[in-house]
């Protein structure tokens, strides 16, 4: 995608500082969290349904993450785990990765190491996500606790 677009030289005065990208993403994430914390996704019709669930009737690995995030942002970790334990696991990784991105974009101060550079880390993530996807769709105990 980046190859298809010609690289247009940008005047140095118009170029955004490196810190602009993590700050913009952080602002969007914070605003989204405020909306999800205040507008309860348990009330039907407020947010769109997961397209995978709407089409197949099965849960995807992300199903329940909106309701879970609402609980997590309101301090109910247990309820959040009940909706989507993968989301609760991913949340600190995402927050840390954002901090690491911010630290890389600022010249001063220490630079936090990137998540996922270990030889096996991405593979572990893949196996965990696929196993979670399969197991949460099984209709018998103890796997039913993984359903949202």
């Amino acid at each position, binding site marked *: 995608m980046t190859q298809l677009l010609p690289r247009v030289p940008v005047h140095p005065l118009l170029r955004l500082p490196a810190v602009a990208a993590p700050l913009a993403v952080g602002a969007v994430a914070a605003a989204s969290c405020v909306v999800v914390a205040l507008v309860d996704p348990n009330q039907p019709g407020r947010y769109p349904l997961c397209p995978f669930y709407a089409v197949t009737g099965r849960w*995807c690995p992300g199903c329940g993450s909106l309701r879970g995030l609402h609980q997590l942002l309101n301090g109910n970790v247990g309820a959040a785990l009940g909706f989507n334990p993968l*989301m609760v696991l991913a949340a600190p990784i995402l927050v840390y990765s954002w901090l690491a991105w911010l630290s890389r974009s600022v010249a001063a101060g220490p630079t936090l190491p990137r998540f996922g550079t270990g030889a*096996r880390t*991405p593979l572990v*993530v893949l196996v965990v996500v696929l196993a979670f996807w399969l197991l949460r769709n099984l209709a018998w105990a103890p796997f039913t606790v993984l359903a949202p």
Partner: protein
Amino acid sequence: MGGGYPPPGGYGGPPPGGYGGQPQINNNLVWAILTTVFCCLPLGIVSIVFAAQVNGKLAAGDVAGAMDSAKKAKTWAMASAGVGVVLVLLYVAVFVFLGAASFVTS
């Protein structure tokens, strides 16, 4: 998406390290995780699959292949996020349309 490997240094500049040192390539794993968990679409999993190829190819010395997989991981994460955003916008548009329709008919 064009196909083939990107020209050396064409994606995100040349990897630091050079000869002797292990070059670092961002495998975009975190974007893949983000879109898998929050965009509610299995497209994010395709992104994780490509992200998982990067470190292995890099360890095997296949720098061009690692860069190609990293680029695909990024593309699929963007596709997952894009589909999520489009669906939300469609949903909002339908609600605005229904709201306007009920306002007109009532």
